[in-house]
């Protein structure tokens, strides 16, 4: 009843030189990492941060499947499984808000750029974009048009995926659904796009839209990652 962990060369100083370790089988990848923490704490902290999150540029394959395409740390690990740790070749590609704005400028249709979106913050699995208020975006009645909010949510997803992957790559919207909860009049909207799952070929995100401190809309997106 055990799991084999394959340790990359760069981390063997933390495993006593061993290229593979055997730990007791656990239900999930998280359980496996907790066994690593108990026996090889310095190896454990190279793989996960102090909040238990897998480090962004550490890739983990369970029997050959990227855990991020499964259920991350909640991925089931069978008895006898092989858990391979590999440093990502994208390591060090810190994706910044400034790069997010460069992705915006370089990859979107002119009318989307006309929305004036600004990337305010990016993280390992999220992006925050500001949609500045403009009278040009108002529909009859003076409130922000839903089309603008949907385009902003769609765009925020692209930035979140780019941030998670360390850079922009070809991708396309498969599904976008948006609920409009409150009208927005004369206020900027902050959109926080958070990836709920990022696999090799698909990404899923939820987008919270907030204006003047109140939730004004909520969207979910599904993306296909191409190439």
């Amino acid at each position, binding site marked *: 009843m055990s799991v084999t962990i394959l340790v990359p060369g*760069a*981390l063997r100083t933390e495993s006593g030189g061993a290229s593979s370790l055997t730990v007791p089988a656990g239900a999930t990848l998280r359980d496996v990492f907790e066994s690593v923490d108990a026996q090889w*704490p*310095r190896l454990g*902290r*190279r*793989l996960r*941060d*102090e*909040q238990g*999150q897998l*480090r962004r*540029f*550490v890739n983990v394959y369970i029997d050959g499947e990227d855990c991020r395409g499964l259920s991350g740390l909640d991925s089931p690990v069978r008895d006898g499984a092989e858990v391979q740790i590999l*440093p*990502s070749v994208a*390591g*060090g*590609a*810190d994706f910044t*808000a*400034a790069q997010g704005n460069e992705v915006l400028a370089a990859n979107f249709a002119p009318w989307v750029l006309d929305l004036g979106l600004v990337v305010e*913050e990016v993280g390992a699995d999220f992006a925050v974009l500001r949609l500045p208020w403009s009278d040009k975006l108002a529909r009859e009645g003076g409130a922000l048009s839903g089309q603008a909010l949907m385009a902003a949510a769609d765009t925020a997803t692209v930035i979140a995926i780019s941030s998670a992957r360390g850079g922009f790559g070809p991708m396309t919207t498969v599904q976008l659904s948006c609920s409009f909860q409150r009208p927005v009049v004369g206020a900027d909207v902050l959109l926080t796009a958070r990836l709920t799952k990022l696999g090799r070929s698909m990404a899923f995100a939820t987008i919270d839209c907030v204006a003047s401190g109140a939730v004004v809309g909520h969207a979910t997106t599904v993306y296909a990652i191409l190439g």
Partner: protein
Amino acid sequence: MATLLMIGTSKGLFLARRDQAGQPWDVSVPQFPMTGIYAVGIDRRGSQPRLLAAVDSSHFGPSVAVSDDLGAGWREPDHAPIAFPADTETSLARVWAFADGGDQSPGVVWAGTQPSALFKSVDGGETFELVRSLWDHPHRTQWAAGLGGQAIHTILPHPADPDRILVAMSTGGVYRTTDGGQSWNPGNVGIKAYFMPDQWPEFGQCVHKVARDPVNPERLYAQNHHGVYRSEDDGATWTSIADGLPSDFGFAMVAHPSRADTIWNFPLQADAVRFPPDFKCQVFRSQDAGKSWQPQSAGLPDGPFYPAVLRDAMCTDSADPAGVYFGTRNGEVFASADEGENWESVVSNLPDVLCVRAITL
């Protein structure tokens, strides 16, 4: 008199050593290769100097290593030496600064981090704890990020009063405690934040580096994101000392190790033009606490010079006359053994230099 120069770069730590001025420098191979060394520290209080290095792997996260044999060997604890407690729901991104707590606080070492937080060690820098009072400060949620991230990059304990500590962050500005860290107050009066609608806010300034005068510890010098300032009251208020400099932008600010009123910086043209003014490699020194400035470039490259010097990539040693050192983003390190009058190249073709610290042995 031997000198050891720690050179933190984007791809590892280099140690340069020479037995006396005038001799060639012996530069090590990279230690912690392929890691960013954003901060190094030297704690001179023990019988052996202790070296600290913030080791930042883009794959495997940040850590802190210490050496008690001048860098021949390094060690790290099993458990993360600097870690945010679970309830903060925050993860350490990078360590930006070390400072020892002074002779009155043996064993105390401070660390400044990204995101902006202060950590305290009582075991000489092997394990640290979050300073809750600053983390819980009501301003914290309004501190923002500069281009390098949001971090506490400067920690200046008062040499005579262990209850008084100054920290500086980009952005956020200067914060001070006078009660040993139980409470913190901003100290930015007089520092302009040209990039904000209110240009004279209580906090939110982008202070790049602060140095403390060795003789008059109430006197401080700050290089700001546009603006060079002096304080006469331990950071409560600031006045401009930028007149006489070719630009008020830059990152580094260092004070003489033992003589009053003597400081160095390395100006850059502007926020949006981060080249040395006139593309000339020049250090500027003031010997009258910033009332006047003199360029120093003897021995520095003559031709057009484009690299910048980062906030921690300039330092002094503790010799008399003082040695001054700076490293550039194109991987060259320069040294002066006579307080900046004459310069020589220590090493070139390194990765970009993030920080330098020197110890006179």
